[in-house]
Every structure is written in C-alpha cells, then in structure tokens.
C-alpha cells in the first residue's frame, strides 16, 4: 500500500487496518534511522571508494577501480590484513573453546561457588576497550609487571621487549582479547546450556561417557546455533579491531600489529587524508564480513 492509498482510505479504515497501520507507525522511526545511519552510508562508501582527491574536492578516479588497484600493491594494507587474520585465526578459536570449557564446568551440578567464579570470569566485560588496552600495555611494558613476574619465576633470563617485537606485540593483543571476551561468550553458552535437560547427562554417565565425550557428543551438537552466533560475532568484531591496536601497541613496531580499521582511520584522518582510498578499504572489509559470515552459516547448516 503506498502512502497515497493510505491517505485516501483513512476515513473508512476497518479496525484491523487501523491496527496494522499503527504497527507500521511504531516501527517507522527505528527503521528510518537504520536506513539513514547504516544502509545509506554503505552505498555511499561504495561510491566514495571510486573517487580520489582531497576530502573537499573528491572526483571520480580514472580508471574507476584505481583505488582497488592501489590496495593490492599497498604493503601496509597487506600487513594489516595479515595481522587481522592472524588475530582472527589464533584468538577466536582459543577464546571460544575456553568459553565452552568454562561454561560446561560452571553448568555442573557438583561444583560450588559457581556464582563467584562466573562473576569473576565475566567481569572483564565491564571494562572499556581503551581502559583494558592501557592496563595491558602497562602490565606488559619492558619494566612492567609481567616481565618482573617471569624474571622472578626464572622463566626468562632477561625482560622481553613485548612492544618492540613483532611477535611479542601480536601476542599481547591476542592475550588481551582473550582476557576481555572469553567471559562474554561464556554467558551465551551458559544460558544455552541451562535449557538442556540435565537427565541427558545422567543417562550418558550411566552409559559410561566421560566429561570430554559429554562435551563433544551432547553439549556441542545441542549448542551449535549459539556457537555459530558467537563465531560470527567474534569474526565480525575481530575484523573491526581498532581500540586495542591504537591504545595497546599503537600498531607497532613498524605496523607489525596494526589492524585494518586502524590503518583505515589513519588513511582517513591522520596522514594526508584520502577519503576515497579509505572508503575503498572499508568496503573490502564489508565484503570480508559478508563472505565469512556466509561461509560460517553454510558450514553451520551442514553439521
């Protein structure tokens, strides 16, 4: 029904139609805002990705896909892409497995003080990304707390220069991310596990299934939809990593830990702003998110 038709028939609306119309009015503001603040900028991002020039004087580039060509030869972009995928491939699986383990332990009937453990493991979620980045940067400083502990335990003979070592910097980011997000994912699993009938586990135990078999043969198949949701959310989140890259390692040393979002921000606002090229790289991230989510949904459907 178009707006015009709506207006014409307003005088003799049935009760049903009236309610239907009320429904549309109720969801109008939210829908318009999402279109305005999410879909429209997405289309514009694609248009701007075909442009070049100063922010105030953008014009279509020739050839149109010039920015896309430039990207394939941009070593910093390729480095940021590699870094982001390193975080994704290493951090997300470790975090999700840890979260599953925590959740299945805290779902056991024979464990006490569950509330306290859950609160502790969930607590990191209450910290701002900037806050925990700064805390971890200080803890992992050359003369910082972690090195002092490792030296005292005689695990290392001299302090590790975490922030000035390409592997060290990435490791700190991965550790920090696991610390911040494991409890968050655990909450999803716990709430899903609580809806599984406990007698299934009792039956399995009588049949001689150990804790590991119970986890892989009962819990995980039943939790599949939730695991899928957390995997998609974590992938999406990792591809957008920004606060940690800026505040924990500042992308360093020499871009060894910079993320795609951080590089795009720098391209947009820091060194000689280039909106066209930044928009182009953003659009590529959007494609990655779409493709990876589609793959995960496909894989999740099959299993």
């Amino acid at each position: 029904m178009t707006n015009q038709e709506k207006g014409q028939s307003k005088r003799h609306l049935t009760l049903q139609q009236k309610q239907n119309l009320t429904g549309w009015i109720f969801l109008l503001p939210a829908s318009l805002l999402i279109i305005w603040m999410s879909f429209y900028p997405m289309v514009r991002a694609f248009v701007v990705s075909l442009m070049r020039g100063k922010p105030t004087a953008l014009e279509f580039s020739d050839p149109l896909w010039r920015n896309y060509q430039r990207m394939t030869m941009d070593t910093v972009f390729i480095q940021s892409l590699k870094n982001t995928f390193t975080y994704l491939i290493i951090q997300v699986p470790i975090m999700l497995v840890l979260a599953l383990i925590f959740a299945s332990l805290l779902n056991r009937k024979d464990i006490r003080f569950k509330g306290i453990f859950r609160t502790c493991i969930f607590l990191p979620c209450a910290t701002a990304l900037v806050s925990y980045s700064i805390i971890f940067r200080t803890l992992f400083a050359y003369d910082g707390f972690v090195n002092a502990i490792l030296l005292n335990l005689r695990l290392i003979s001299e302090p590790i220069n975490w922030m000035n070592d390409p592997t060290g910097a990435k490791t700190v980011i991965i550790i920090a991310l696991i610390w911040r997000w494991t409890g968050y994912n655990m909450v999803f699993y716990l709430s899903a596990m609580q809806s599984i009938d406990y007698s299934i586990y009792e039956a399995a135990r009588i049949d001689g299934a150990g804790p590991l078999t119970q986890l892989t043969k009962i819990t995980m198949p039943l939790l599949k939809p939730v695991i899928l949701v957390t995997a998609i959310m974590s992938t999406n989140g990792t591809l957008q990593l920004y606060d940690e890259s800026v505040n924990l390692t500042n992308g360093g040393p020499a871009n060894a830990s910079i993320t795609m979002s951080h590089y795009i921000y720098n391209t947009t606002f820091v060194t000689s702003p280039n909106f066209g090229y930044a928009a182009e790289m953003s659009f590529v991230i959007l494609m990655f998110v779409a493709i990876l989510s589609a793959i995960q949904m496909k894989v999740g459907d099959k299993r």
Partner: protein
Amino acid sequence: MSKGAFRKYGSKALIYLFLIVMSFISVFPLYWCFVSAFNTTPEILGGKLVPGGHLMENITNLLDQQKVFTALKNSFINTILVVLLSLTVCSVAGYGFEVYHDKGKDTVMKILMLSMMVPFVAIMVPMFQMFSAMGMLNKYIGFVLPSISTPFLIMLFRSNARSFPKEIIEAARIDGLNEVQIFVRMFIPTMRPTYAAAATVTFMNSWNSYLWPRIIFKTNESITMPMLISNLMSGYVLDYGLIMAAVTICTLPTVIIFFFLQKSFTEAIAGSVK
C-alpha cells in the same frame, strides 16, 4: 582412600584449581589498576600490590593536567541521551514488530537485521562526511544519532514482547484504550526487566565507545573519558599512578553497574539470540 575416591576428588580439586586460577587472571588486571591508582610510578613498576597513600596526589595531578570534569560530564550526557532515546525508539519498534506482525513487517525486520553485519569501520568515511555536512561535529546529537536505533535492541524487545500476553492487549482494547495507551500503560510497566537489561548493555556500549567520538569530537571541550585516558599514553614520561587513577575513574561507572545489574546484563546479551 581408595583409588576411585582419589580419582573422583582429585579431578574435582583440579577443576576448582583451574577455576580459581582463571578467576584470578580475570580479576587481577582490574585489581592491579585500582591499587596502582593509590601508588607512585616507581612503586607500581616495582610490583607493589597493595594500595598506598598517593591517591589524592595522583588525582590532584590528573585534575591539573586534564579536563576530567568536562570529559565526565560529556560522557554522562552522551550516554544518558543514548540510553533514553534508544530504549524509547527500539522498544516501540520491537513491540510493533511483534504485536502487529505480518509478512510485510517480518520482511522489514529481516532487512534491518542485515545492518548488524555492517561493520562500523565500513561506513566510517561517509558517516564523517554526512555529519560534518549536517554541522553535527562536536555536538551531543552527533554522538547520539547513530546509536539510537540498533537491530540488537529491537531484537531484544521483540523477543521479550513475545511473552507479553495477547489477552491483556485485547482486554485493554475492549476497555477503550487506544494502541499508544496500551503500549505506555500496559507494556512498559510489565517489561521493566527488559528495559533494565537494555539500559545496562546500552550504557556500557555508549560509555566505552571510542572510535566514533574520536571521529566527531575534535575539540577539547567535547572530549569523552575514553578519549581522555587514551591521550594520557602519548607522553614520553608516563606517570603510571596518574594514568591508573584516570583509568579507574573511567572504569568505575561500568563496573558498579556490572555488579548491581549483572543479571540484567547477562539477560540482555544472551536474551537477544533466543
């Protein structure tokens, strides 16, 4: 002790040990930050793990160097505006999608959900262009506008509206209440826990937001708390006592909310995927 009993208690002891170690690791960085706010830089680097007597000194130094009150005021205004507006807009929409649902509205919902897949960084450049063209840089409205309507909150309200009894709506209609009155007088009071959950998670997200404010807030007067603490790390000589005092101030509101409203928070993040 028999072998079986040892295995039983031994494995349980291992589980407790594991949980205790993991809980310790989860809490330690925050405890360390909090304690360090009471200590001087040499003490912090020396590994002091109990609070000392330098809190006032750290805070005085911080207030001298940084516009902490401006940042706190901005962060609170930004966050409260987002909470109020997004709860209103999204609860109305979630209610609309559920109570008046039909094929057309379900399709609209599915399309809106797609926007969850749009990473913010993918629209960062056009968003900045739009907001500077609209003259919304350095203004509260600039921060608030993109966060008012989120598919996450709409979904949360929609899935919780499912448990709102249809009979109440029918009865209210017979009593002569119009649709808006039903929403305001029946739905909002019944759905208080959902509103609490939505408010908790929205407060945390807005308070902690960093990238978007960094893009649109360009003056010292519009700085937010996360921006302020991020700036502290740019000096050559770092005063860790001062920095940890600032980080503690920035973290306190969300940690307090976490402890008081943990249940709401949990319900909000887990409830949206039902």
